C-alpha cells in the first residue's frame, strides 16, 4: 500500500533571524495584496533588563491542521484539505463570510475585502505539486524552515526533527487541531517563553 504523504513545515526558532525574506518571498510568489500577509514574522522581546535579555523571532502562518476548525465552520465547503494535508480555499466557492477567520485559533486567515474572500498560506501547493519547495522555505536566510513529508522517515524534515525532537513543540496542541507546522525552541534563552506551548 502506498504510504500517505503528509506535508509538514518545521521552523527552527534557534536559526530564525527575523529577516522577513519568507514574507516577501510569499507575497511575490503568490501575488498577495499589500496589507495582507500569508506569513509574518513576530519579534518576541527583548524581555528583561539591559543587557540581560532574551529575544526571539516567531514566524507564523497557516498551520495546515490535520483536524482544522476552519473546515468545520465553512458553510460553502470552500475550505478543504488535500490528500497530502494541505488546507486550501476554493475561491470559486468562498464568498467571504469570514467565519473561518474567527474559527482559526492561529489567526492565519485574512479576509480580502477587495476580493470579497478569505486568503491564507497555501503551502505553495502549486510548487509542491511540481516537486519544488515552498517559496518561503527556499528563500529562508536562516535556513530554519524545513519542508517535506513527515510520514517518510528518510525525508529531510523527518531526520531534522528526529535530531531535535527534544525541542520540538506545536502551538496550542490542546485544541486538538493537529497542526502541520512544528517549531523548535531556540537552544539558548526563550525557554520560559516557549514553556506553555511545549507538547
Amino acid at each position, binding site marked *: 500500500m502506498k504510504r500517505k504523504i503528509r506535508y509538514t513545515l518545521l521552523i527552527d526558532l534557534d536559526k530564525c533571524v527575523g529577516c522577513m525574506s519568507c514574507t516577501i518571498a510569499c507575497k*511575490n510568489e503568490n501575488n498577495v495584496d*499589500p*496589507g495582507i500577509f500569508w506569513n509574518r514574522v513576530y519579534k518576541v522581546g527583548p524581555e528583561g533588563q*539591559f543587557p540581560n*535579555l532574551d*529575544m*526571539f523571532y516567531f514566524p507564523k502562518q497557516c498551520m495546515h491542521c490535520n483536524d482544522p476548525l476552519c473546515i468545520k465552520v465553512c458553510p460553502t465547503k470552500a475550505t478543504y484539505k488535500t490528500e497530502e494535508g494541505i488546507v486550501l480555499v476554493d475561491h470559486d466557492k468562498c464568498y467571504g463570510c469570514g467565519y473561518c477567520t474567527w474559527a482559526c485559533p492561529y489567526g492565519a486567515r485574512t479576509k480580502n475585502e477587495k476580493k470579497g474572500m478569505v486568503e491564507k498560506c497555501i503551502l505553495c501547493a502549486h510548487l509542491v505539486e511540481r516537486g519544488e519547495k515552498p517559496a518561503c522555505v527556499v528563500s529562508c*536566510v536562516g535556513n*530554519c524552515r524545513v519542508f517535506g513529508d513527515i510520514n517518510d522517515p528518510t525525508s529531510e524534515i523527518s531526520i531534522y526533527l528526529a535530531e531535535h525532537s527534544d525541542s520540538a513543540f506545536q502551538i496550542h496542541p490542546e485544541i486538538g487541531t493537529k497542526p502541520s507546522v512544528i517549531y523548535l525552541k*531556540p537552544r539558548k534563552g526563550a525557554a520560559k517563553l516557549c514553556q506553555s506551548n511545549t507538547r
Partner: protein
Amino acid sequence: MGSIIHKPDGGKIIKTNCFECHAKCGALCHVDSKGRLVKVEGNPEDPRNEGRMCPKGRAAINILYHPDRLNYPMKRVGARGEGKWERITWDEAMDTIYTKIMEYRDQFGPESIVNAQGTGRGTNQWNQRLGNTIGVNHWLAPGHICLAPILVTSLSTIGMVTNWEGADLDRSEVQVFWGSNQIWTEQTYTSGGVNRGRDRNVKLIVIDPNFEHPLAARADHFIGLRPGSDSALAMAWIHVIIEENLYDESFCKRWTTAPILIDSETLNPITEDKLKATGKKDTLVVWDRNTQGVQPMDDHHLKPELDPELNGYFEIVDLNGEILKVKTAWQELRERAAKMTPEKAARLCWLEPKQIYDSARMYAKAKSAAISYFQGLEEHTNSMHTIHAVNTLMMITGNLDVFGGNMWPMFWNHMLSDRLTGRPTDPKAAEKKSNPFKLYVASHPQQVFETMLTGKPYPIKMYLGIAGNPLSWSEQPENTKKALLNLDFIVVMDYFLSPTAQLADIVLPSAHWTERDYIADEQCGRWYFAQQKAVDPLYERRSDVTFIRELGHKINPEMWPWQTDEELFDFQLEPEGVTYKELKDKWIHEHTPDVEKKYEANGFATPTKKAEIYSTVFQSIGIDPLADYEEPLESPYSEPEIAKDYPYILVTGRRYPNYYHSQYRGIPYLRELAPEPRVMINEGLAEELGIKEFDNVWIESPHGKCMMKAQLTNGLHPRVISIPHGWWQGCPELGLPDYPDFIANANNCITHKKHDKNTGSPGSRSSLCQIYKA
C-alpha cells in the same frame, strides 16, 4: 546549456546576480514567454547564498516594474527643484553633458567637475576612471562612512581587507560579530556560515550596543558596549590575551612586525643603516635571542636561525658609537594594553569586567575565530585606531588568513588598481583633489561641499552623480543642498527621482540589475559572476556602465577604446583569461583557489611583507603606528560639558533587512514591513521622559535635529538612542508619506566638522544627543 535555461513554454530562466546590496547573491530570474520577469529567487549554485535570498532581492520584480521609476532622460524646465521636467533624447543629454564638461574644464580646470556616486558596488572602478579621464578624480562618495576607513586602514597595515567575506565563519570555532549585522545586510556570505554554525554549536560573540541584533539573543556573550568605545574594548582584549599568554607567539615573531626595534622615545623604527655602514635604509632590525644581538628582520624568506625577541628594552650602539635606547614594538603594544585593564575598559565601555575577560578568552583560546566587523567600527571619529586594534587582535592570535579565521579575499587588492581606474592624464592637475585626511582615498565629501560653497581654493561648477544620494547620506544635508545649489550644472543618474535628483538640471534613468549586463566582482569572495540582464531595459533606461563608458569615450577615446560594454568587461577580465561571453556561458568563475596562508608564498602585501602590528606605512606619514584606545571626539568623556545638555549617545543608521540605505521606501511590499522611521529608546528612559510608544519625538544634537516616532525597547542601554537613516521616499500605493525637507534625516544630528583625524570618518554612530516629545 549555458546560463540561460529555456523552458518548453517559451519562457526562460537566467542565472545572474542580485544587486540590491553589495554582496550580489546568485539569482535565478524567471522570464515568461512574453519577456516579462515573473519571479526572482536565489540560485542554489552560488556557493555563497546557496539559494537563500533576502527580502530586497526577493522584491526585485517590484523594483523593476515600479511606476515611479525614471524612464527617460529629462531636463529641468522650471526653477531648480521646482519639479518641472521635459523629456529629452539620450543624444541631447549626452551632448549637453559632454559640452558642459569640456567648457568647464577649459575655463576652470578639471577640478571644477565632480564625479560622484553612492555605494558603487560594481562601478567604483569605472566612476574613478571617468574622474581620471576628466582630469581630477574627486570620486565624491560616502566612502568616509563606509568602506574607506576599513579599506585604507587594513590595506596599509595587513595588506588585505579581511572583514566581510574574509570572515571565514563556516570553519571557525568562534564567530564574532563586532559592529556588524551582516546576516541582514549582506546575508550572501554570512548566512551559510552562521546557520551551519548553529548546527555545529559554534561559540558566538555579539559586540553591539543594540540587543535587537538578530544574533544577540543566541550569543554566548552579548557585549552591549557604549557606542564608540570599541577601541577600549579591543585594547582590553589585547590586555587579557597578552597577560594570560594567549597569543600566537610564533606567528607574532615570524609573521608580524611585533619584534622590530623602535626608539623608546620617538617610537621610530631602527633601520639597519643607522647601525652599520653597509646597512640598508629600509631594513628593520630585531633583537635575536640566538646571537644575543641585533639582526636584520627577515621578510617572507623566514630565517630559521633567527629567534626574534618579542619583549624588552635594549641599549644598542649606532654607527657613530652612540647608545640608542630601544624597545620592541611588541613591548610598546604591551604597555599600551597594560594601561587598559578590563576593569578600566568596563568603566569606559559600560560593561562588567567579567564579560571582557570571558569574551577575550573565548576568542583567543579558539583554534580559529573569525571576526565579522563593519560600519559599527567605521562610523566614529576614532575609526583608524579602532580598526587597527581589531586587526591587531587577529594578528596576535594568528587568526589572519587561516581557515576559520579572517581570510584574504584577493579581489580587494585589485579593485582600485590603476589598470582599471586609469592613470590621470595630467598628474599635476590630479593633485587638486581636496582631501585633508592622510588615510582617505579621494576627495573628502565635506571638503568638496565646502569648496562648492566657498569657491575656495577653486570654483566647482558641475556635479555628475551616478547612483548616489548625498542629500541622504551626508552629514548636515541642508549644508550639502546649499553646496549643490551653488553649482552651475547638476546631472544625476538613478532609479528614482531622489532628493538629489530633484535638484538636477538633467536626470538620467538607470537600468535595474535585471535589465543590464555587469560583472559581479566586489564582495564576491573567490569568484566573478556574470551579472547578466534578464530582460531588455524598459523604456529608455540605460546601464550606468554604458553611460560612463560612452561619456568617457567622448572625452578621451584612448582611455575608453571600447565600443560596447562587453568589450569593457573583456578588458576587466583579461588577467583571468576569460571573455565576458565565456563568463556569461558559465556564469561563475573562480579567480582564487580556497587556500589559507597565502602569505607564505610572498609575504603580506605590506612594505615589510609582514602583518604590521607596528605599521611602517602609518609611521612614515606621521600617524600613530600602533593600536591604541582613543575616545570619540564627542562623547561623555571627551566632551563632558556638551554631555550635560546632550546626555545620550546617538547611533544613526540602524539597519533593516528590507531596505538598503535610502532605497526602497517606495516599494509597497517592502514599505509595509517597516512603514515609518522610528527611534529606539530604552523603556525606562522613555518613561522618565514621558515618551510613549508611537509618540513623535525630536532627536536633537548640538548640530541639528530630526523627528521620528518612538519605539520603546529593552534592547538598548538607557543612555543610548538608535535611529535609522535613509528616510525620504513616500509610498503612494500604501498612502504612506515621504519626508521632504530633511525632517526625518538622521544626518541632521551629525556634524560635518568633526572627523577621525586620519580616515576622515564622522561620528555617525557616537554623537551626543537629547531626546524629547515633539
